[in-house]
């Protein structure tokens, strides 16, 4: 039952987007997020959507696969949209009972829905096309400048990649403990929420003990293999910018210029 959980859901295929340097993708995602909040006119949204659509097509990840990640967020989105729809003050278009729908409300709701959709799909592009390993490498190298202010960048990246490696192992372990407790007559599925949370205790305690033991073992194994922090460490797969990364940066820059320019245009402004 726990095997269905996939984290950092990477989609394996060959594409330009997959081959891009993770640093480009990281910065690209951040810039794309920023751009979404720069404008509030239809042309801006059209350009953001076209940009995203182009990237999706280039990534060769099936669109249906991306939508899958949206499902969980749909409820959250509906709530936000509905609240905006009914709460916003302005020219009333439709009213029944105590609820009023205003023109401004509709516009705001549509904008929000669009923004959230673009945000989620935009961020999933990065996780879908970058292996977790590559991502941590990218973070480590891309954020190296933070070392100046004493942020332990290497350590954080190492912790991330170790956690990613142990997620499936600990999931398997949880499954095993659950089965062991079920075999001893533990009741995990009946009762109210509070009861069920309480029933999780005999699962979490052994899980934590085992996780700590694993951590101790792993620390020993890492030390035995001469691990002593990021100092003097070389890379088996060092990140190197290629020409395609330069082109990607240029495209990003162009996209940002267009977004900022559009954001300042009042010509198409809706509100």
């Amino acid at each position: 039952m726990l095997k269905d959980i996939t984290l950092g859901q990477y989609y394996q295929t060959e594409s330009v987007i997959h081959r891009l340097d993770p640093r480009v993708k990281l910065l690209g995602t951040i810039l794309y997020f920023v751009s979404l909040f720069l404008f509030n006119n239809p042309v801006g949204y059209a350009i953001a959507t076209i940009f995203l659509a182009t990237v999706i097509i280039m990534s060769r990840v099936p669109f249906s696969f991306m939508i899958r990640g949206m499902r969980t967020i749909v409820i959250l989105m509906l709530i936000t949209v509905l609240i905006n729809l009914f709460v916003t003050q302005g020219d009333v278009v439709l009213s029944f009972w105590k609820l009023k729908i205003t023109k401004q409300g509709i516009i705001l709701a549509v904008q929000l829905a669009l923004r959230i959709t673009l945000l989620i799909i935009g961020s999933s592009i990065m996780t879908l096309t970058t292996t977790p390993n590559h991502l941590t490498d990218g973070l480590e190298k891309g954020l190296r400048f933070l070392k100046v202010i004493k942020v332990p960048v290497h350590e954080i990246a190492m912790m991330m990649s170790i956690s990613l490696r142990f997620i499936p192992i600990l999931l398997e372990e949880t499954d095993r403990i659950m089965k062991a407790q079920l075999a001893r007559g533990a009741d995990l599925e009946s009762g109210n929420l509070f009861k069920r949370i309480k029933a999780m205790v005999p699962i979490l305690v052994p899980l934590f003990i085992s996780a700590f033991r694993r951590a101790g073992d792993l620390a020993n194994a890492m030390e035995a293999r001469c691990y002593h922090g990021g100092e003097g460490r070389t890379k088996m797969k060092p990140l190197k910018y290629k020409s395609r990364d330069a082109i990607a940066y240029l495209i990003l820059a162009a996209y940002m210029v267009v977004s900022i320019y559009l954001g300042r245009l009042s010509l198409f402004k809706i509100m």
Partner: protein
Amino acid sequence: MDIIKTQDVLYEYIRRDDEGEVTGITTALDHISLGIKKGDFIAILGRNGSGKSTLAKHFNAILTPEEGTVWVDGNDTSDEDKIWDIRQTAGMVFQNPDNQIIGQVVEEDVGFGPENMGVPTEEIWKRVEESLKAVGMYEYRKHSPNKLSGGQKQRVSIAGVLAMKPKCIVLDEPTAMLDPKGRREVIDAARELNKKEGVTVILITHYMEEVINADRVFVMDGGKIVMQGTPKQIFSLVDELKALRLDVPQVTLLAWELKKKGLNLPEGILTVEELVEGISRCR
């Protein structure tokens, strides 16, 4: 010259209660002195709690002795400056295959050791390839370690140590969590390394069958070395081994029982072939 030498090594585990008062002391290593020759295949036998894993951890400075000295390739393990040299000289493979693989891809895990040592990138790739080939895991280099069997994971761990070009590999019960097939894979890989690459192998185990081909065997009990010698010498002492609650290989046990019943068989039979030959000579 001895690659590993210990002199009067003492190590104690001290248990304390919540107030920090000492409630008990377990002497894990009780004045151990031994020497291990370069290029040998050494086996250290002993039941649970005999101190064999504690001894293993002294061989690459994960633990340092309270009294006495451990030298690895001439370096004292309590010398802080030499610690990385020592760990590079004496690589270590642990019991649980899941808890010692760091990388998310086989080849990346094998490259972890050389990365830490600061080996240049091209050299790392060369070493990873060689090490994976040496343990027969090269085809799996792009796989995720989670998808491998226990024996395969342990072979990857061995490759990870091998990529550091150690002179000596310490295997601390590498087969304890494996099925018979995985056990054979791992032991064969270790033996291969010893023969072909001339790496000193120290195998810590409680499976007697894995000991048969060792050059030298140490038997530990209660933190002391109670027996040492070639497998033949050790296994001819069936009564003593039984007193230490160690199992003797089935063939050896059968030969021993037959001999007790009056058959004229040689001492210390270790393989089926030897027994067959011995019995056919009896007539």
